[in-house]
């Protein structure tokens, strides 16, 4: 267990390191950063001043060291567009993204998990067919289009909820569904096939043979085993929720990190972009670590490895 956790934490650190390295390399590959900050009216003095501030006179490995040192103290440089520290902007946007991600995650679980279990237990029933349709739409419809269609029907035509923004509590419903659907579908499919496998296993047969009732076989003996692959996928889900949030936040004008990434892209705001990516990666790594711990909790084979 300890060894497992140490390995996971090390892995998380390596990931963060790799991301920082990629960002650093790209920041140098994309051209001289001095051009980003200075305009045509800058003087040679400004130029030299900036060279020293950014440490561009030093060798690359030292520049990277400075980059890391700054990053660790929360300094990702000034946003070009807004002219204030990127970190400040990020902190303003994080809550909205976390709310949306959480809502989408909850949606994907409450839709996907029961549907997955029931469609495995009652194969060929109406529920199974509904599950199939949900899964097929979720895996085939592009998130941005699904979002637009939801917006068109439920906000524009029916006017049940606001079409975009984050003014009202109900605003979160449509983006959460658009974002969560794909994962609801994936959870459902995974859980269904895992359940079918488990229900066919020897230990379920033995459980039945000792007189365990049908319900207990499904909810106690099978579900916990079937959740293992679902949980494995949850790690990927979290990464996907991040990716998806960029799209969904753009569609619904949701004031979160994802939308910020697009703003940075359109504004050619590299310092802001790198901060956004570090923030996203950090969120992902922490969430994945959490999933790994959950994993150990559910599967004793990992806990006592």
């Amino acid at each position, binding site marked *: 267990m300890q060894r497992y956790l140490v390995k996971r934490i090390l*892995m998380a650190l*390596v*990931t963060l390191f*790799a*991301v920082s390295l*990629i*960002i650093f390399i*790209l*920041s140098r*590959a*994309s051209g001289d950063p001095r051009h980003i900050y200075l305009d045509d009216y800058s003087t040679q003095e400004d130029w030299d001043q900036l060279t020293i501030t950014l440490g561009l006179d030093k060798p690359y490995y030292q520049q990277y060291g400075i980059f890391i040192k700054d990053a660790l103290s929360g300094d990702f440089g000034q946003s070009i567009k807004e002219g204030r520290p990127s970190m400040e902007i990020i902190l303003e946007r994080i809550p909205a993204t976390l709310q949306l991600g959480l809502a989408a995650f909850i949606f994907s679980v409450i839709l996907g998990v029961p549907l997955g279990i029931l469609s495995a237990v009652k194969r060929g029933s109406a529920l199974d067919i509904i599950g199939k349709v949900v899964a*097929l*739409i979720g*895996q*085939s*419809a*592009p*998130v*941005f*289009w699904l979002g*637009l*269609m939801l*917006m*068109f029907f439920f906000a*524009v035509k029916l006017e049940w909820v606001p079409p975009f923004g984050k003014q009202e509590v109900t605003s979160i419903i449509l983006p959460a569904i658009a974002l969560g659907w794909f994962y609801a579908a*994936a959870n459902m499919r*995974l859980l269904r*096939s*895992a359940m079918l496998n488990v229900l066919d296993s020897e230990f379920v047969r033995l459980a039945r043979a000792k007189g365990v009732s049908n319900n207990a076989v499904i909810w106690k003996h099978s579900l916990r085993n079937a959740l293992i*692959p679902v949980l494995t*996928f949850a*790690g*990927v889900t979290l*990464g*996907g929720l*991040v*990716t998806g949030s*960029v*799209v969904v936040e*753009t*569609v619904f004008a949701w004031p979160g990190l994802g939308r910020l*990434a*697009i703003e*940075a*892209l*359109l504004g*050619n705001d*590299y310092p802001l*972009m*790198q901060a*956004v*990516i570090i923030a*996203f*990666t950090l969120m*992902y*790594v922490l969430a*994945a670590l959490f999933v790994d711990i959950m994993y150990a909790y559910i599967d004793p084979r990992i806990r006592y490895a």
Partner: protein
Amino acid sequence: MAEATGRLTAAPIPVPVRIARRAWRLRRLPLIPIFVLIIFVISGLGANWIAPHNPERGDIRARNVPPAWMEGGSTKYLLGSDHLGRDVLSRVIFGARISLAVVVVTLALGGIVGVSAGLVAGFYGGWRDEVIMRIVDIKLAIPTILLALVLILALGQSFLIIVVILAIAVWPRFARNIRGEVLQLKTMDYVALAKVAGASTPRILIMHILPGVVNTLIILATLEVGIVILLESTLSFLGAGVPPPTPAWGSMVADGRDRLAVAWWISTMPGLAIMAVVLSMNLFGDWLRDKLDPRLRQLE
């Protein structure tokens, strides 16, 4: 249970029986998805000849014309026209071309890298495996879209960059699944027996390992087609796709997003096209998987 035992009798299986068996295996062919996919490929290859209008030149007098079956629609614009008076149908047909090109190049690139990495990691193991799998883990930890955005921001926007980004997105899945498959194949007794018979490492890889991963590879490739199309259209929706004016499905959806209330078809039609192709590919992939290797049903 007793499937394999006792089937072989003294006489060879007659040819008609074999043909009949093969036909039996092909039953329940997913006809509609295959039909959709054929249309997709034909549109992609022959957009110039099929599309009724020029996709990039609009008629200012015919803006926001609804689809033919609606009031005010015209058979001239079967799926309506957009805010610049361009024919939506023609643009959808031309959009297939981008998607098709991106899919083919991405899968070739990502597939080759992923399969080689998976083969090396699985077959040789040791530090090579460790290094490759750690890179895969790191790649999976970085959200694709963000990586794409930062790369585009740093390196600019072009077909090549888009394809490279998408290939970076797909190769880890190839690597991981192929590696898993190779790890299993490697423990098969027939690999050890080939060594005993004196087979060289290249011979073992080519004769005994590669043929074993072909099914997995085909199934993976069909599943990845959908993923690549979705990613590509997402990028172009965000304005980070193959640069305009070439019409891509994603950017067409983006074009119509502010006009949903007045001309819903501008966004809806290309979206439907994406969904139809991805859905068909997924259904076809599922069918293929059941036929080739039911064991792989859990492949994501």
